[in-house]
């Protein structure tokens, strides 16, 4: 899941304080689950802004909404329409950065502000704690590393680790950060496949990652279906 964290309200307030009518749009998927931008949080942000504006004697109309996912046209279009038709001057999206982008593309003259900081792809390791586990590098190598990602979970993303900085299972950068390579080694050891780590992993092809430029995924089946139906009409 994408993990995000709500931005400080002082920052959010700065974005929107020039406007008279704003929409706060929550997302019912990832940011709901990581407690950063679901319907409940939309309510909290809206209330906080109202209180702040009240204190400054300013009248701002705040509209709250939360859609299933901000990354699908079918879900986003109605809200974009609402913005266009409703005279809304600014949108605060509590979806991840994808939501902000997606809404922005649909709103020519309305600014869309990010209400959360989109952090990473991660898992909830305990209630209320999420940890990054995948870097979305585009060419998964987890087969080599016992299912634990060195790119996301090693501070140096090294492929022939661990570096000399691993101590008591923790990374040299902080005792709060698990050493990804320590995890890999102990896991491979447990599974009796440690010797696989003796194999040299050559420099990797990062072109599938962000380094290769903006990426896209095409599901041909889904796509041709659409094209097919277009042909019929």
């Amino acid at each position, binding site marked *: 899941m994408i993990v995000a964290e709500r931005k400080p309200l002082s920052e959010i307030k700065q974005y929107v304080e020039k406007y008279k009518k704003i929409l706060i749009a929550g997302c019912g998927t990832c940011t709901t689950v990581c407690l950063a931008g679901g319907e409940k949080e939309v309510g909290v942000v809206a209330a906080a802004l109202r209180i702040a504006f009240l204190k400054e004697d300013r009248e701002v109309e705040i509209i709250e909404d939360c859609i299933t996912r901000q990354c699908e046209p079918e879900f986003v279009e109605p809200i974009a329409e609402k913005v266009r038709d409703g005279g809304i001057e600014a949108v605060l999206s509590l979806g991840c950065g994808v939501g902000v982008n997606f809404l922005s593309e649909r709103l020519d003259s309305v600014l869309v502000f990010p209400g959360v900081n989109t952090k990473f792809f991660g898992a909830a390791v305990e209630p209320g704690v999420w940890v990054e586990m995948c870097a979305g590098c585009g060419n998964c190598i987890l087969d080599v590393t016992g299912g634990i990602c060195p790119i996301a979970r090693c501070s*140096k993303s090294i*492929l*022939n680790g661990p570096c*000399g*900085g691993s*101590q008591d299972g923790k990374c040299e950068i902080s005792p709060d950060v698990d050493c990804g390579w320590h995890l890999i*080694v102990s896991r491979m050891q447990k599974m009796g496949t440690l010797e696989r780590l*003796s194999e*040299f992993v050559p420099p990797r092809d990062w072109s599938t990652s962000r380094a290769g430029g903006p990426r896209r995924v095409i599901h041909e089946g889904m796509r041709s279906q659409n094209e097919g139906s277009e042909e019929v009409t």
Partner: protein
Amino acid sequence: MKSGSKLEQLIAAGHFVLTSELGPPMDCNGEVVLEKARLLKGCADAFNITDNQTGVVRLSSIAAAELIMREGLEPVMQMTCRDRNRLAIQSDLLGAAALGIKNCLCIAGDHQSFGAVGRLKGHPGAKNVYDVDSIQLVAILKGLRDDGVQQGGDPLEKRPALYIGAAWTPLGDPVEFRPFRLKKKVDAGADFIQTQGVYDVELFRQQMKIAVDMGLHERTAILAGIIVPKNLGMLKYMNSSVAGVSVPETLMKRMEQARLAAGDDKKQASKNQAEEGIRITVELIQKVQEIPGVRGVHIQAIEWEHKVPEIVKRAGLYPRPIITEKGENNASESENSCG
């Protein structure tokens, strides 16, 4: 000879080699480098020039290496993976070779977050690169030198003759895996190894035994790292905070006694500790020398370089051998005066 460096030659000739470290300044004052070079000349066979050590911006290792060559010292240029992608790294390696640099230590480099320590702000917000890791770097360098190909596959005409070094943290966690990682480095092409500072000789001996059993000591030259302790505080810090370093209780006791012996006299206390630190260093050098497979030592006197000559002398490693034209060597004080 792979590189023809002095270090390579001495190792090849079976000498117990000695390297030391020289840290460049945080500005462009090359004179500082030259001064340190003069101070250390003759005290070691080659001198590691650190590469933005602990994530702090310093005069570049390639330039500093070139500077000390002017004073007749042989540099071991350090190259980290933190700040350059594979293009920059290869281009710097080619440049270094063109300048006559003959040794290169390939390391990952401390994380940039380490730069913010004490009074220093560093650049913890920098984007790190780590396009390749240290083992991959060793392999790339070997490829350039021995196969004449760049990592991407393009051929080279003139190949960089660099003696390839790598670091090893024998006592780092997970300890069981450390010998394997050493082997990976050796397999990738590491000609010599400089280890993380050793205090716990016993544990180090055990790790070395494994390495020897794996035959690694014959395929590479392992130089034991010795970090000179200045005082009790430093030992404690190393023990608790530096990954892969464990300091035995007895050493800390000795240091403590040295301090206590001075009573309330602070100056005397630090003097006592400095003396004890040097004594410990000398003992460590002598002990690791006896461990099978250890082919030399790498002395790091961090911000304390001027003590190196004394240490080297007291450890009985002075004078250093010299290389005659024929490649023979013998010790001579006149040519290589130290300190």
